[in-house]
């Protein structure tokens, strides 16, 4: 354990999250549904409130004071995201509604222009539906083929088979179901050696580990604000400048244009070309505050603490008879999916909730992965840096209660 992790004070950090200070069904809330969405620190809540109370206006083109302030804050948010991801230029950061929209944007702009009949798109077997369905739709439209890199019994993806026709590799950085951390840098290098473009779904990675898009050398990287302790409704698409510049626009409307006549419209440059209409300005301000907050604690400290918590939770859960962990990758983030003998995940989830333990149950938007493991659903506990060993203990106690009930 590093000193940074040793000095990590989750109890102190919890005070920054007002929502965690409550009883649920008479029990202290153990919020273990962070892979679905994370809670918000006071700093984020206050930043949004302050923005609406004193600075808010529509952005760009306004000549009055509020518009200038709002524009400055919005564009500062872009610079903060650029630094957070290690991107070369702020213009490589496109604000979207979330990870899903980021992937759809790439599918409908880059994809339509670059994927043709007979081409192949390679994804992995552990993708979230949002990194499957947009590509299926594109393949159907273009007459292309979707291929899938398999997972092994641990939930790792080891074989990425590229063919002459592979044009795009779209892969998760971390599995939302299994917690598997995928070897993005190595796989991206292999893909690039064959001229294959690489998109990374970073929804589960950005909140939990250092992401440096230039070190990973991916072409596109997408994530959502709400999983990074920021507000809902905002996401980020990073794209390499040359790619973004060559891409056609996404939606038409205000802000994405340079000149409009009824005969001909010329488009703005990236990222504005992809940001038609009034964006979620306060959302970006909130995301910027979330990034500040994460930076203050340090993403490596967060990752280190969560890894330690994952170890503790894994050891404690493994002691429970009839509990089987789904996903035992050697490189793993703080997500634990499990099944209980004789107890359906849906029943487990309901009982756990009655003891104040919030987990997710179901297929986690990854039905093909459930099919591969031969299970209809799992119960998933996913951790954040404000979780403690007490939360793990509450989870374990509640599982024992469920077992008693179904004994």
């Amino acid at each position, binding site marked *: 354990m590093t000193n940074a992790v040793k000095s990590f004070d989750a109890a102190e950090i919890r005070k920054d999250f007002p929502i965690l200070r409550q009883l649920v069904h008479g029990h202290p809330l153990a919020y273990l549904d962070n892979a679905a969405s994370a809670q918000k620190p006071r700093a984020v809540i206050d930043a949004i409130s302050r923005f609406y109370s004193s600075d808010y206006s529509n952005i760009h083109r306004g000549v009055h004071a509020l518009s200038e302030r709002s524009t400055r804050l919005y564009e500062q948010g872009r610079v903060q995201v650029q630094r957070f991801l290690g991107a070369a230029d702020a213009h490589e950061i496109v604000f979207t509604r979330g990870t899903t929209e980021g992937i759809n944007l790439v599918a409908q702009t880059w994809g339509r222009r670059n994927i043709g009949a007979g081409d192949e798109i390679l994804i992995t077997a552990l993708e979230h539906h949002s990194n499957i369905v947009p590509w299926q739709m594109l393949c159907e439209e273009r007459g292309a083929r979707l291929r899938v890199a398999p997972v092994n019994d641990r939930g790792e993806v080891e074989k990425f088979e590229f063919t002459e026709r592979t044009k795009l590799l779209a892969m998760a950085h971390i599995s939302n179901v299994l917690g598997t951390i995928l070897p993005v840098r190595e796989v991206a290098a292999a893909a690039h050696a064959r001229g294959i473009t690489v998109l990374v779904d970073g929804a589960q990675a950005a909140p939990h580990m250092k992401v440096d898009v230039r070190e990973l050398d991916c072409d596109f990287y997408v994530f959502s604000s709400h999983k990074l302790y920021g507000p809902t409704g905002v996401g980020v698409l990073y794209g390499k400048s040359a790619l973004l510049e060559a891409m056609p626009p996404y939606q038409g409307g205000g802000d994405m244009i340079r000149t409009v006549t009824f005969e001909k419209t010329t488009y703005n440059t990236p990222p504005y070309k992809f940001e038609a209409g009034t964006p979620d300005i306060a959302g970006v301000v909130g995301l910027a505050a979330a990034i500040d907050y994460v930076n203050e604690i340090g993403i490596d400290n967060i990752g280190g603490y969560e890894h330690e918590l994952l170890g503790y939770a894994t050891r404690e859960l493994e002691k429970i008879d009839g509990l089987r962990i789904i996903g035992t990758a050697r490189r793993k983030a703080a997500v634990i999916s499990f099944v209980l003998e004789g107890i*359906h*995940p849906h*029943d487990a989830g*309901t009982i756990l909730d009655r003891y104040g333990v919030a987990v997710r149950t179901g*297929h986690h938007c990854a039905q093909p992965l459930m099919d591969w493991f031969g299970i209809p659903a799992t119960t998933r506990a996913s951790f954040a840096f404000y979780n403690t060993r007490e939360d793990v203990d509450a989870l374990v106690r509640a599982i024992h209660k469920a077992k008693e*009930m179904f004994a």
Partner: protein
Amino acid sequence: MIDELYQEIILDHSKRPRNTGRLENATAAAEGFNPLCGDRLTLELRIEDDRIEEAKFAGSGCAISTASASLMTEVLKGRTKQEAEKLFERFHELLTSDAADSSGLGKLAVFSGVREFPARVKCATLAWHTLKAALENSREKVSTE
């Protein structure tokens, strides 16, 4: 409150469901699916002279959906199609309305606790939606969504 949901009779029917498996000489059948939790079931009925003589189900699901299917197959026996449809209406009301009256519902009254768990109403009604499809002789797979 959790004990009101998982009453003894529900736990019993979920662990030892009655009338499971395939039905010889089935005259009506339907498949049900709850995409939220992945529960699936196949329901087969033997209907003679408008009366449900026998009902069997197969599938996998949570305790609530399994117990509901099991108890449903028990109470359906000997009922006419119309009576069965009426029963579903009353059962649905029991799960969703605070003013519901459970008289005459017999064992089905144990599901009144589901009312406090809105996310689980679909689990309790999956078998019944499937029944409705079977009675309408629809070959389509029904979904709770």
